[in-house]
């Protein structure tokens, strides 16, 4: 089959060439659609269901909302698991689907289930699905600020409420229209509300209850359409406007008629613009601000979308009142541009280096050009493939592309073709070859090496298979990488079967210089005696090789290790955590201090933070947690531009640790978001206790903690924080309530309205709508002591103080209630130090089984990263041997000989040796990135061996003299081996040396490959011929194979 394809390609060479246009067309078209981002999206398929429940305490929101929602979701197809948390005013259920589930399908399913339970939820509460976005979705953030001295229309300076109004009603509607934006999430400022603040005393005087006021407002605030009438042929619409429009309107609403005298709102209450009871705030550079976040729709191109948002923001700016400024504080474009620049630089420089090597070694301009042409073609095919398979272009997916590897197959073919052509020309008295003869020669030359070349590329492809077996976060990180490389290799493979021979046939028509390039001549001159010497000192060479393998094996154990090198986003994010129960305003104060301190660093450009929960609860934090973003100035503006980011982070950490009351966790913006979304248990071992009663759960968890702490190797063991939120309970005294003719609901309504406020309609100002809220004046609300004498109106007139009918109690209550798969849970987490995870977990399980007695109805589940590790190692331990077996199988297929296949296989450990030494020399830790390098390396090593061995064998079979064949073959193959090795390693050199954004992810990989290829080339050039000679010494030529 291969022959017929080759023949076709050469005969229909122009047709083949025209395919180039197709590839270009498809590639460029796809490139427009290629999603570009900095890093792969590692978010799982998840849908958040948020239900805002103003005033609900954690217990209530769990009981009334979370539970029904969770129950409704049970049994949804492709559901992986649900987890939920219930906090003050919020129930959030996160539904995670199996990998590969279509997000829109999943959302549809959820929508259906939610529709079914609408009636079982408390009235007025509406579960909503979070934005159709992922962890990479927060692409753009901006602040809305007023310039110094800017005033509102009424002459007042802009306050947080006014700024929020501008954000909500001018900016957000415009930005939400940008294509690719799914949500504009706001945090900070106050939602403008009209507050009716009754004075308890006046209410008593006029015998008016809070309910009366609410009722009056509700029934005196609506427009009514009244159909139409026809008058003299003309149609007149009828309406009766009655909406309240201003504060004065509200004040004039009549609550009650007391002996013929109307009692107006203004008689019993103060009406003013007030502040909502907010759950989140935003700060910037130490001051309160309003912060908008543009969230990108799943699958969009973050660069395009954030550019569009930035553009639209400029247009919005012109529509704003004078003195209001929009300032973009986080723009994903910056990071993506930087990352793409890094990748681009690597790829372009790599490609140039590869082409240069080709010129130098092939010594033929056209040949080099043909080979190099594979690079853009393969790249374009890859891009088309990426779009088709939904792989986005990012540091990881493009990070392992080495043009050297890609052109390897073509190099071998072209090299052989020009060698043969030159030879033939030489034989033809340097005359041009006739067309037919030339074509035949090209066919032969190609066919000669196509098999090893194809096998080689296939083998390199196969070694990437283990990467596909990774699951979870690792899988998401490395699947795109593996997919891209495999696509590029396959593209190169097809190209070297079709277009490369076609191009050789067309363009290698002129005189072909037979002279080898001086480099190769020099190399050969050096290589020949060296090889001969090596052949004589076989044991020394083999011994050295073996020794190197063992030394590097030992070296590997001394290397440090990290999981994935962390992408340096160029900005710093930090969680500032305060103790649970810290109030929002207190948190804002503490936050201001923190920001002022951070701002003092000359390297810091902007610092801003989100405290608590934003409008759309994509990241439901309690008020005591703040996400800080520290945007850094360009390095050139730093006092010391050579300072590393780690050093800066260290300095900032030391500085902010002096501020009282904050605890910190340093991370980076995207990383932080991923962590929040993936969430789960982030420790090595998480023991989840499931059950009903929170106190019992906590007791059991503490018991487990005690056991856990005693197990050897346990570190940082702790129980998840579930309590500690101080709560003021107003507990009705049932008999007293009944004695005064009240009922519990009335009492609760009163407390809820008095403290939390009750929404009693809307005020419309054009499109803008603002709530009217009845709530006690701040002074009265905040006075806990005074609360006990709050008058409670009695149904038949008169009043009693609140303390008469209820007990007031302050006690700590659950801070949040976490559930998983429909059951309450408390997690005990621990890390492991100085001992292997597997045995630790076994130990812990045993200890807990024997020492902890769980009551009936309670059970445990073990989770944590150990699970992923276990499954990853398990899978790898199956997949890696299988892969090796496949490679071996391919080799056996290529050679029909086990022995030869095995000889080639020896290339792998020696190649790894070089990789390890290179890592050690650059002082880099082992990581998955480096691991991918090792994988690529194994492929290259095998390819080299294959090329060399195939030729030696052919030569041996042809000439019949083993020793001569080995030396001769090695010499002739020196050029392709050197070339493949040089292009592969040089292609990675820019990557290994780059220091741009994102380079940290690729550097280990490139380092490993370069180091490995050097050692593997040495092996191919010296050890392989020796081994081959040794092992085949006693074999006879099987002539039938020739």
């Amino acid at each position, binding site marked *: 089959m291969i022959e017929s394809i080759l023949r076709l390609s050469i005969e229909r060479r122009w047709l083949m060439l025209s395919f180039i246009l197709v590839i270009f067309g498809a590639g460029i078209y796809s490139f427009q659609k290629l999603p570009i981002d900095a890093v792969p999206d590692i978010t799982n398929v998840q849908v958040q269901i948020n239900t805002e429940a103003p005033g609900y305490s954690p217990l209530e929101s769990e009981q009334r909302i979370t539970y029904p929602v969770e129950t409704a979701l049970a049994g949804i197809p492709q559901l992986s698991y649900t987890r939920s948390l219930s906090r003050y005013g919020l129930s959030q259920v996160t539904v995670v689907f199996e990998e590969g589930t279509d997000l829109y399908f999943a959302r549809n399913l959820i929508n259906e289930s939610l529709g079914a339970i609408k009636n079982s939820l408390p009235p007025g509460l509406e579960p909503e699905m979070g934005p159709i976005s992922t962890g990479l979705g927060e692409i753009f953030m901006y602040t809305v600020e007023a310039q110094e001295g800017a005033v509102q229309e009424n002459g007042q300076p802009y306050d947080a409420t006014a700024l929020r109004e501008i954000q909500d009603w001018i900016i957000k509607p415009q930005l939400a229209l940008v294509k690719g934006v799914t949500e504009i999430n706001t945090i900070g400022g106050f939602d403008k509300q009209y507050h009716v603040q009754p004075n308890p*005393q006046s209410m*008593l*005087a006029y015998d008016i209850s809070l309910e009366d006021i609410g009722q009056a407002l509700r029934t005196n605030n609506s427009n009514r359409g009244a159909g139409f009438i026809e008058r003299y042929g003309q149609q007149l619409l009828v309406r009766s406007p009655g909406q309240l429009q201003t504060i004065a309107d509200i004040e004039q609403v009549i609550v009650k008629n007391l002996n013929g005298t109307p009692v107006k709102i203004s008689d019993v209450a103060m009406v003013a613009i007030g502040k909502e009871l907010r759950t989140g705030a935003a700060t910037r550079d130490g001051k309160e601000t309003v912060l908008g976040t543009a969230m990108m729709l799943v699958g969009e191109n973050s660069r395009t979308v954030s550019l569009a948002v930035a553009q639209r923001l400029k247009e919005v700016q012109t529509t704003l009142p004078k003195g209001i400024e929009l300032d973009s504080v986080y723009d994903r474009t910056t990071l993506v541009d930087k990352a793409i620049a890094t990748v681009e630089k690597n790829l372009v420089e790599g490609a140039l280096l590869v082409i240069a090597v080709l010129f130098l070694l092939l010594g033929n301009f056209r040949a080099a050009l043909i080979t190099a042409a594979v690079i853009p073609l393969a790249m374009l095919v890859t891009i088309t493939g990426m779009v088709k398979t939904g792989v986005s272009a990012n540091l990881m997916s493009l990070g392992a592309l080495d043009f050297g590897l890609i052109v390897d197959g073509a190099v071998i073919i072209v090299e052989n073709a020009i060698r043969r052509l030159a030879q033939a020309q030489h034989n033809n008295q340097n005359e041009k070859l006739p067309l037919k003869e030339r074509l035949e020669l090209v066919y032969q030359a190609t066919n000669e090496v196509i098999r090893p070349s194809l096998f080689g590329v296939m083998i390199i492809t196969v070694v990437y298979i283990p990467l596909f077996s990774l699951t979870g976060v690792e899988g998401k990180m490395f699947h795109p990488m593996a997919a891209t490389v495999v696509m590029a290799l396959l593209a190169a493979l097809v190209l070297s079967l079709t277009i490369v021979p076609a191009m050789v046939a067309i363009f290698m028509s002129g005189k072909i210089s037979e002279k080898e390039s001086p480099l190769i001549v020099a190399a050969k001159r050096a290589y020949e005696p060296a090889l001969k010497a090596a052949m004589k000192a076989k044991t020394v060479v083999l011994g050295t090789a073996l020794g190197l*393998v063992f030394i590097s*094996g030992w070296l*590997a*154990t001394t290397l440090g*290790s*990290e*999981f994935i090198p962390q992408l340096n986003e160029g900005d710093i994010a930090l*969680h500032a*955590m305060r*103790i649970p129960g*810290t109030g929002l305003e207190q948190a804002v104060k*503490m936050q201001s*201090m923190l920001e*002022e301190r951070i701002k003092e660093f000359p390297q810091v450009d902007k610092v801003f933070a989100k405290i608590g929960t934003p409008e759309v609860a994509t990241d439901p*934090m309690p008020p*005591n*947690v703040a996400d800080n973003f520290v945007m850094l100035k360009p390095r050139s503006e730093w006092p010391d531009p050579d300072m590393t980011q780690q050093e800066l982070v260290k300095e900032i*950490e030391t500085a902010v*640790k002096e501020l*009282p*009351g*904050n*605890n*910190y*966790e340093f991370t980076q913006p995207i990383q932080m978001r991923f962590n*929040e979304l993936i*969430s789960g248990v*982030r420790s*090595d071992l998480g023991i989840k206790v499931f059950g009903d009663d929170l106190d019992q759960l906590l007791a059991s968890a503490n018991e487990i903690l005690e056991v856990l702490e005693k197990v050897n190797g346990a570190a940082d063991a702790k129980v998840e924080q579930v309590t*500690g939120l*101080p709560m003021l309970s107003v507990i009705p005294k049932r008999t007293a309530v009944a004695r005064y003719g009240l009922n519990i609901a009335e009492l609760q309504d009163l407390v809820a309205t008095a403290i939390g406020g009750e929404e009693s309609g809307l005020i419309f100002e054009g499109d803008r709508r603002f709530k009217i809220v009845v709530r006690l004046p701040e002074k009265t609300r905040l006075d806990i002591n005074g609360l006990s004498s709050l*008058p409670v109106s009695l149904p038949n007139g008169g*009043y009693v*103080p609140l303390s*008469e009918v209820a007990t007031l109690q302050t006690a700590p209550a659950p801070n*949040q209630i976490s559930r998983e798969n429909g059951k309450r849970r408390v997690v005990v987490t621990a*890390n*492991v130090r100085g001992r292997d*995870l597997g045995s630790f977990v076994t130990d812990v399980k045993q200890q807990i089984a024997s020492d902890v007695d769980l009551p009936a109805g309670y059970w445990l589940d073990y989770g944590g*990263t150990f699970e*992923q*590790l276990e499954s990853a190692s398990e899978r790898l*331990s199956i997949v*890696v041997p299988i892969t*090796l077996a496949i490679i071996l199988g391919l080799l056996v297929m290529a050679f029909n*000989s*086990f*022995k030869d296949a*095995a000889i080639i*296989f*020896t290339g*792998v*450990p020696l190649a790894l040796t070089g990789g390890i030494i290179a890592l050690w020399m650059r002082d880099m*830790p*082992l*990581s998955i990135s480096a*691991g991918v390098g090792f994988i690529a390396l194994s492929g290259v090593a095998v390819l080299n061996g294959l090329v060399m061995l195939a030729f030696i064998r052919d030569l041996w079979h042809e000439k019949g003299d083993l020793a001569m064949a080995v030396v001769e073959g090695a010499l002739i193959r020196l050029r392709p081996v050197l070339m493949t090795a040089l292009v592969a390693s040089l292609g990675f050199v820019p990557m290994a040396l780059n220091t741009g954004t994102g380079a940290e992810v690729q550097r280990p990989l490139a380092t490993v490959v370069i180091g490995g290829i050097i050692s593997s080339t040495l092996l191919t050039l010296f050890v392989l011929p020796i081994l081959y000679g040794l092992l085949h010494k006693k074999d006879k030529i099987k002539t039938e194979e020739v």
Partner: protein
Amino acid sequence: MTSLFSMNPMIAKLALSFMVFSGSLQLAYAEQHGDHGHEAQEQGHSEEHDDHNEAQQGPNGGRLFHEGHLTVELALIEDSAEPEFRAWITDEGQPVSKAKLTVQLTRLGGETKAFEFKQLKTKMGDYLQGNGAVEEPHSFDVTVFLNHEGQTHTWQYENHEGRVEIKTEIANRAGISTQPAGPGEINQTLTVYGKAVADTSKISHIEARFPGIIKRVNVAIGDKVKKGQVLAVIESNESLNRYNVTAPFSGTITARHAAQGEQTEDQALFTLANFDSVWAEFQIFPTQSQRITTGQDVVVSLGERKANTRIEHLIPSTTGSPFMIARALLDNRSGQWTPGLLVEGKVTVKKVSTPLLIDNKAIQTFRDWQVTFIKVGNEYEFRPLELGLRDDENTEVLSGLKAGDEYVVDNSYLIKADLEKSGASHDH
């Protein structure tokens, strides 16, 4: 097929290298996930008491001190009735009985306390028991003196808990302010509501003494009259003599039924009322009644209007309602208290001078206690308090604090937050 044998070790080697690789990945995982979020200095109770990281721990869970063959183990036992020191002294592993052990504690601020030890034999084992309870907070510098065979050995260690250092500059920026604790007055109040009612003794429904025809009326509603002023002139039906109806006291005419020419009949001609004083009648509900007695001061207020008075009477409600009525007299010469007004009363239910009180803002809950934070130099430390009476501004301190101690008033929450911050985490 000899080649098969030559191949196996190679595969093994390869597999080995992969294993090395995946093994180190595990390590990588542990390192990456192990370290986050534990930078904070642990300040918690249990942490500090177990803070013998560098120190050796003895067989009884205490701290070990060595000098030659001599070993002292000192433990602070908290699960006994009162926290106490226990010690074990051994010489080459043998218990030593003839030795004098003294432990001296120096607290923040320089206060010292010394503990002597005496031998105790119990079922649980023998030990030396320190005399006296070790009071909270268990935060001090400890000096251990051991006098054994004429030689005195000294050891020192720090046992700090609930103590934090904040630089002055930062404390200022954070708005942490302090003031010395001292004596003061606790003024407990109770808010009650009631109505202003007129003084019934100062309302007169004036009738004619003899029936007759009203010849003249001198006053109209709202007129202010003096005692003895002639209000009307009436011609008696019997004697046909005219006589004057005069005001029995000074006051305001609030009703007038008399008109010229009318028969007086049996009706009241005028209602004369004197509003110079009105009563505020407050409803006192059962939960409040124990705290209210006559003679208590009360501030009566209505909006901006305020008056100081005292509770004169406490009478049960006559309407069968569950509350009592507390009456207070209001001076109404300015006429601002109209009967029928709903008024608020702040009754001073208790007014005592206390030797030591602190600002309410200074009180925080910490662990299971109510505490305040004292400041010495740049260091702050909690003091568990036993609190007494409390009013809107101050709270009496029964124990736990000394007069003159500099305590944190504003932003005391920051100190609490700092002490507990190691527990602050970001769980989702």
